[in-house]
């Protein structure tokens, strides 16, 4: 074996092969390597009509990729894995899609219900929970594999199921949510995921959405069917729930609500909560120590989102159809509307950068995303996007209730 001489290829062939190798190597190095990058400035924009999401980055305000095949996104919401790499997109059709933001592709997808509204992720990042309208209930999935771990129907004594709204993450693999028809609030504990344990609380008539405060202490459910909101102090669960702002409508005939408001932890700025009124063109201001109304601010139309800039200095408000081309800014120091903007037609959603210096707005009817500088209230960028709705940045991964 070792006595056999190795026959080398003729020099001409070497010349060809070596130069080919050199060429190929140089070609490799001229295309950027699968870029090493962080995830802190990434996000997704929902393109609701086409079942697509755009993967974006906020440093250069650019679109990195468009990912297709997410089903019916007419009402979609997103939560992120703890490392900000994966977006879990909950679609209207019950689809739960895991999108890898670094590889910019779908990493997993299940259709888990007939009609869904959103979802949440456990504090340890291990469980993704979907909230469903049809069949009403919540379902927990393994965040790695998207395998079903537990199915918790929202059933009441008479056997009927309710639509689930206002799902939020609590400490210790617990989730809190409200039942639209039954008017109940429930907390389900998935500490032992195979054997979830559910506690029940009184809610109120027709809860439409809810929030958990940024510190995780309070859960507030907005009620469509009555004048008021339901509040639970999660640090004193034995005290149950109570009503706040009862009778804020003052018995007046409510104005038509062409779109239900959304509630999230962004409503809280300092020791004030800024809550969209239902059937009144007002933002209600509540003291979060006493839970008494301290002010109400007249705005242009039925508010949908009242979002505090992350520093708490401003509240940006958008509105229900047919006034969804308007945005107003409330100064939290003076308690007054300081700016009235028209960023585009059909402003469905707004998302602040984590330090609040920019806000991204989706203008559905203009097919674009517009970016405003919150200091100057002037547009500073944007890009085309087909019928955009929700905008979600990975910085949500670090926040309770997002």
């Amino acid at each position, binding site marked *: 074996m070792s006595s056999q001489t190795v026959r080398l290829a003729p020099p001409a062939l070497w010349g060809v092969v070596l130069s080919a190798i050199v060429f190929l190597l140089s070609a490799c190095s001229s295309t950027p390597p699968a870029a090493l990058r962080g995830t802190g400035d990434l996000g997704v924009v929902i393109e*609701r*009509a086409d079942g697509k999401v755009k993967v974006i980055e906020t440093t250069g305000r650019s679109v990195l990729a468009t990912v297709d095949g997410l089903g*019916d996104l*007419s*009402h979609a919401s997103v939560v992120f894995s703890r490392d900000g790499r994966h977006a879990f997109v909950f679609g*209207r*059709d019950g689809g739960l899609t895991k999108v890898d933001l670094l590889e910019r592709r779908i990493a997993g997808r299940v259709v888990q219900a007939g*009609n869904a*509204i959103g979802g949440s992720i456990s504090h340890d990042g291990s469980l993704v929970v979907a909230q469903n*309208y*049809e069949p009403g209930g919540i379902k927990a999935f393994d965040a790695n594999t998207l395998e079903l771990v537990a199915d918790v129907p929202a059933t009441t004594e008479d056997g009927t199921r309710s*639509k689930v709204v206002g799902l939020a993450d609590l400490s210790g693999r617990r989730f809190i949510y409200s039942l*639209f028809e039954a008017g109940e609030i429930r907390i389900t504990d998935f500490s032992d995921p195979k054997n979830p344990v559910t506690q029940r609380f009184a809610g109120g008539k*027709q809860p*439409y959405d809810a929030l958990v405060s940024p510190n995780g202490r309070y859960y507030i459910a907005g009620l*469509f*069917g009555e004048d008021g909101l339901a509040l639970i102090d999660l640090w004193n669960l034995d005290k149950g729930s109570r009503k706040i702002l009862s009778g804020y409508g003052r018995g007046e005939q409510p104005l*038509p*609500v*062409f*779109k*239900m408001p959304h509630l999230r932890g962004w409503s809280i700025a300092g020791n004030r909560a800024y809550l969209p009124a239902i059937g009144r063109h007002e933002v209600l201001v509540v003291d979060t120590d006493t839970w008494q109304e301290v002010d109400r601010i007249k705005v242009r139309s039925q508010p949908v989102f009242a979002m505090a800039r992350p520093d708490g200095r401003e509240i940006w408000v958008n509105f229900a*159809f*047919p006034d969804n081309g308007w945005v107003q800014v409330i100064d939290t120091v003076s308690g007054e509307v300081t700016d009235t903007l*028209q*960023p*585009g*037609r*059909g402003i469905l959603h707004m998302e602040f950068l984590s330090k609040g210096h920019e806000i991204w707005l989706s203008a*559905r*009817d*203009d*097919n674009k995303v517009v970016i405003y500088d919150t200091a100057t209230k002037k*547009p500073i960028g944007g890009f085309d996007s087909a*019928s955009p709705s929700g905008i979600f940045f990975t910085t949500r991964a670090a926040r309770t209730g997002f």
Partner: protein
Amino acid sequence: MKLPPLVAHVALLIGAAVVSALASASEARSVAPQAGPQPERARELVHIVRQDCGSCHGLTLKGGLGPALTAEALAEKPAEGLVATIIGGRPGTPMPPFATIVSEAEAQWIVDQLMRGFPSDAGLPQARHTP
């Protein structure tokens, strides 16, 4: 992942054919027996129903907080009742009255379209000026 060029071209051709067939079908539908809204208003109404009614009833009208509005779901329902619901809303539920948004004739047209299977949304016309 990349499709061979031939397949891509054939798919594109088939797609274009399907789209134009659907477009002509929905055009044929929108020529209602009674005088419907003007084309521009009709386009706007389709957009409103798909997008804004869609925030509760779903973009595909298969339901959400509000019930499904597909042709099958509405098959057994009397048209007059549906028109009354659009105009007057349904007290005790989140369905608001749309009397300030659409006329009764437009509501009738919308119900008629819903019962035939609602047209797809072509979006709003370009804004005259964008800020």
